[in-house]
């Protein structure tokens, strides 16, 4: 490999190599600093220690990860199922918009951490309250961006569909819904990131499994490296799920990826 090849390869992969390099440097500095200054493990464990302790109980951690993933996905799906009809209602009628908007804002102004324990009492200590909390955290930006998408249809497109004698239903399915797809995806990206937050909040309050539970139980026993490990897994989970949505959009709606409103 000649030097120009090497440079070309470096340029082509710069998008990945530079952030990766930065990450490696950060971990190295972290490791070195913890060792050099003898920072106690319960304050800041070294990366190697986090990895060791987490790997030592990898089977258990995997189960917790799966439990959290379940909650995230259920909550996320519930957000989609609720948001779409809500957005259609809000965008189709002034009266619905006036009736629903204040309620939506109300659900958002109540701190979800405050709702969670109440939900556990009402719904029982099972998966349902966690899913609901996840949903409550995640669905709001989805409704807002879906509604914005349905309302952003240029009046000329509506006029066109009317000139073609489209029914209200055809106008919705053939024009408004497809038009809102770029907006929907920008909402989905926000919602999946928030779903991770919601699931952990739910698990903090009441759970016998999940990464949120693992963090509370590990810190209770001063097993700080494991708590750090769980936190890092949550971060990775969030990034992977987010990227998954980016990829789905690029594969199935390439035109939408190009049209998406900048946020």
């Amino acid at each position, binding site marked *: 490999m000649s030097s120009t090849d090497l440079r070309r390869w470096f340029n082509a992969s710069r998008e990945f190599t530079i952030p990766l390099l930065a990450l490696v440097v950060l971990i190295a500095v972290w490791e070195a600093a913890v060792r050099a200054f003898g920072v106690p493990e319960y304050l800041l464990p070294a990366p190697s220690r986090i990895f060791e302790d987490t790997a030592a109980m990898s089977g258990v951690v995997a189960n917790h990860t799966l439990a959290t993933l379940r909650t995230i996905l259920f909550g996320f799906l519930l957000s989609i199922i609720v948001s779409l009809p809500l957005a259609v209602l809000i965008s189709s009628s002034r009266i619905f918009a006036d009736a629903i908007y204040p309620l939506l804002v109300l659900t958002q102004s109540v701190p979800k951490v405050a709702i969670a324990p109440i939900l556990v009492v009402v719904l029982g200590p099972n998966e349902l309250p966690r899913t609901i909390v996840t949903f409550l955290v995640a669905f709001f930006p989805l409704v807002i961006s879906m509604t914005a998408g349905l309302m952003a249809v240029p009046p*000329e*497109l509506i006029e066109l569909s009317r000139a*073609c*004698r489209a029914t209200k239903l055809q106008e919705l399915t053939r024009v408004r819904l497809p*038009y809102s797809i770029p907006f929907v995806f920008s909402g989905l990206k926000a919602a999946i990131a928030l779903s991770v937050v919601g699931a952990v909040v739910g698990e903090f309050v009441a759970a016998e499994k999940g990464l949120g539970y693992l963090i509370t139980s590990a810190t209770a026993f001063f097993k700080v490296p494991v708590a750090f490990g769980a936190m890092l897994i949550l971060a990775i989970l969030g990034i992977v799920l987010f990227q998954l949505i980016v990829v789905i959009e690029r594969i199935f*709606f390439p035109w939408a990826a*190009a049209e998406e409103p900048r946020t």
Partner: protein
Amino acid sequence: MIDISNAGQVFGPAHAGGVRALDGINLAIRDREIVTLVGPSGCGKSTLLRLISGLIAPTEGTIRIDGEKVVTPRQDTGIVFQAPTLLPWATVLENVMFPSTIMGRADAAAQQRARELLKVAGIAEFANHRPRQLSGGMQQRAAICRALVHNPSILLMDEPFGALDALTREVMTIELMRIWTAAPKTIVFVTHSIPEAVILADRVVVMSPRPGRIAEIIDVNLPRPRTFALAGDPEFQRCAERIRSLIFGEQGVRFDVQH
């Protein structure tokens, strides 16, 4: 045959100072005739086109097509707007098929017709492209194909070339006449370009603003097929001059600088 009798349009409630856009419009448009509507902004020419299309209902008078009162958009009209208004997610072919799809007649025959129209418009090779991959002129060609796909007998065009550059605009005007020659239809064409209005029209309807009224209807006695070379023809200049004087007054435009 489009028959507009005593049509008027007031936007907003009359008692609360509604805006009168059109007043006492009487106009009969023959089959396969090209009529251009020209006038300054605010003369109601786009409103008149929307009345004929059935997108809005007149507050006074009636519009009839072949004796039938127009109340909603009809299957025998096609409309082209100033913006191409193509669906960004659909291919050019799917966009052209849109009216057929909505009317539940997106069959093989309709697709065949859509492909033929794309060929006539010279954009056949872009059938499977997305609109954003096309230039403005090509997008507007696709929009014209879309307006023609269900084979309407009336084509309504609302400043269709208004957003294009001057050169593309002339090409498109000639192309439109070529398409018309191949399959003549009634065309009602709104424009604010005087040469465009004259070169296309059998009759030019000159409108005056506030409220929108018909100032005069001018017959254009130029032979077809036409090109912009006719711009030097005395008949062309007579028509253009007459329109100019109707719009700007007998003295023409005055560039008085007030001190």
